């Protein structure tokens, strides 16, 4: 569960996120959408502990990300919009590094490793240095690293950038499976409204640092008094 309690973030005198309260329960895939500069990435970075809120608090399964950061991060995983991986490690070494960091035992790691290598068809290049990977190959590796330790909370910023249609499909299915079968909470910030429309349980719209709409797609349509695609609903909400 993710709980943002009256969170505000200021950059100098500019308010990037204003008094944001949001609760995402276990077993929910939440999509966070908004125009450029609306405060999405700031919210994401605060949620994973990279930025400290100017006011308010953020709880990950009841643990304050800033005060009890180790316990909170133990059950958290994060995929940034521009993922990082050690270029001079092989894919296998990188996954082993992540597994060890989250305390996975050898057998458990091997099981998960085999599962994701097979799922994302990485066996041909998993023992090559990451510097030789394409963007899509790197993205598949990062997604595998994210789910390797079965995090209870996953925060994702633009998850499908660089993925081919097959990998994008696999990733979306993986997100749904994790939410449905394992009760994970996924907080997904995205610009691709069709993805939000397709897989999200609830959608939040942020504009100029404020949450202007929150609910299921049907609720958002009702709120904006429109019956079209999410794109139309979103544009109407933002314009109004």
């Amino acid at each position, binding site marked *: 569960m993710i709980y943002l309690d009256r969170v505000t973030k200021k950059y100098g005198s500019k308010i990037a996120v204003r008094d944001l309260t949001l609760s995402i329960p276990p077993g929910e895939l939440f999509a966070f959408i908004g125009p450029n500069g609306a405060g999405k990435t700031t919210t994401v*970075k605060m949620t994973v502990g990279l930025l400290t809120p100017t006011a308010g608090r953020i709880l990950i399964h009841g643990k304050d990300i800033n005060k009890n950061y180790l316990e909170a991060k133990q059950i958290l995983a994060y995929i940034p919009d521009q993922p990082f991986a050690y270029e001079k490690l092989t894919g296998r070494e990188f996954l082993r590094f992540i597994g060890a960091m989250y305390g996975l035992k050898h057998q458990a790691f091997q099981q998960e490793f085999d599962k994701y290598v097979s799922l994302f068809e990485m066996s041909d290049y998993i023992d090559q240095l990451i510097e030789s990977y394409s963007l899509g190959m790197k993205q598949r590796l990062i997604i595998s690293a994210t789910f390797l330790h079965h995090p209870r909370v996953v925060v994702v910023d633009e998850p499908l950038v660089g993925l081919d249609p097959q990998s994008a499909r696999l990733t979306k299915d993986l997100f749904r499976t994790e939410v449905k079968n394992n009760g994970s909470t996924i907080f997904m910030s995205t610009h691709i409204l069709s993805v939000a429309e397709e897989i999200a349980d609830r959608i939040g719209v942020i504009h100029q640092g404020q949450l202007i709409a929150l609910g299921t797609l049907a609720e958002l349509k009702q709120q904006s008094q429109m019956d079209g695609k999410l794109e139309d609903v979103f544009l109407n909400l933002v314009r109004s």
Partner: protein
Amino acid sequence: MNDLVILLKARLDILMHQLSYLVTSAKLKSIVVLLAALGFWVSMFKVFQGGFVFVGKFPDLVDWLASYLLALFFFALTLMLVISNAIISYISLYKSKEGEFLGPLPIKTGNLFLYHLSGSLIFSSWAFLFLGTPLLFAYGVNRHAPGLFYPAVLVLCAIFIFLPAGLGTLAAMLLATCFPRSKKQALIGLGGLGLLCALVGLSQLIALRGVASPFTERWMYEILHKLAFCQNPLWPSYWITRGMIGSAQGDYGETIFLGLLILAHSLFLLLLGYQFARRWYFKSYSLVQSGREARTYPVWGLLDRLSPFILPFFKPPLRLMMIKDIKTFWRDPVQWSQFLIFFGLLGIYFLNLRNVPYINVRQTFWQYLVSFLNLTATTLTLATLTTRFIYPQLSLEGKRFWIIGVMPIKRATILYSKFIFAFLGALVVSETLIFISSRMLNTPWYMSFLQYYIVLIICLGLAALAVGLGVLYPNLKEDNPSKIVAGFGGTLNLLLSLIFILMIVGIIALPCHLYLILGRLDTVSFKYWLFIGTGTITLLGVIMTVVPLALGLKAIKRLEA
């Protein structure tokens, strides 16, 4: 497994892959680097040994002088290590992609501090061992030190490097915590502090004026008295100096005591940093990332409006590329503040040449000696700065290389714009300094013009070399310029720059020395040799400019981003 162990194991794996690549795929590169490093080490050893042999000619003073030399050397090196550790740690802790990647992982913040410290320790301190060992080994050979001296020296150095690393990393965290939104002001403050220290040092030297005639015993005592600050028992650099001297004299008790003293302080600093990181790292990280509100710049800045008049001879694409580089340079205080500190210090010194007690500007000997030393100091400083700032420029285009890569301009324009930017920048600063030096020393007109010409040749060569090698050995994946420079291309650039400067200065300085100081050349022969020398440096300058640019041109056309 402990999170720090996991992080260090990953770093070890990365190191092993890099070594394996060097051994299997880059044999020639590895051999060139190894041979160059070995040659450099041996040359340094020989130079230091020569120095100690010279000092040994004064048996009454030898111990005293050696202890001053070592103390001064370690004092300066410690200061540089603290600064370099602070800069590398700051980038690695607060500005790197790796810092952002590690932030959300379940790693204790104290261990994050230790991990980043270990990185800056490796990057900063290899030069300490590389520069320090030839001096210490030369000292050992000269003092007929027992065999145990050499391992003791290595152990002392290995313990010692943790101290400036701890101090530098702690300083980086303090800077980020106290001045998170005013990096420029903090850097200006630090630069100001450096200049103030230089002024204090200079005023101490000026105070010697008239106290004693140069190169007399009294003069020597006065000079050493002014340098006594580096012998302060509270400086860690003094502990390592005394530890070395103790082990050279077989007094291992003192060496062990001072070694433990250094170890205790190193551990204390690590503990302090660890505790500080536990409490403050994420807060300071957030403060640094939060930054200041973005500044709005004028639609047409002064540079945009004046560029057609300042740079009238260049075609618009070339001019636009240069304006982009000038703006990038000007808006990054890390870059210009280092230029300001180094050249500012030289400028202050040159402006006060007439006040320096041992320099008699009316004597040809001093005019010749000091002006050539100033020329060498200026160009060597320039070489380190072109290596540090110009060489990584193309690499720093990195993932943005496509922007200029797909523009409707020739790739050659990119190369030439960087070359002209580097050359003009270097020329203006260096010629100004040499002009000040010449005026202060009242050097004859022919010597002044000769030195202006030497500077012109060196600026052309250094700019072309840094730009050419920067294109030949690009590292488009690295964002940290320190790491780009630490690679093969950066090392080669610095090495070739140093050789080039020493050749150019040496070719002109030699006939001047033979004629003006030793009187071994008559006026006709002097003019003849000067003419030949000028022709030779012109030829060398042309080669050093054309060859790297031609190779760079070929490489930039092939470059794939």
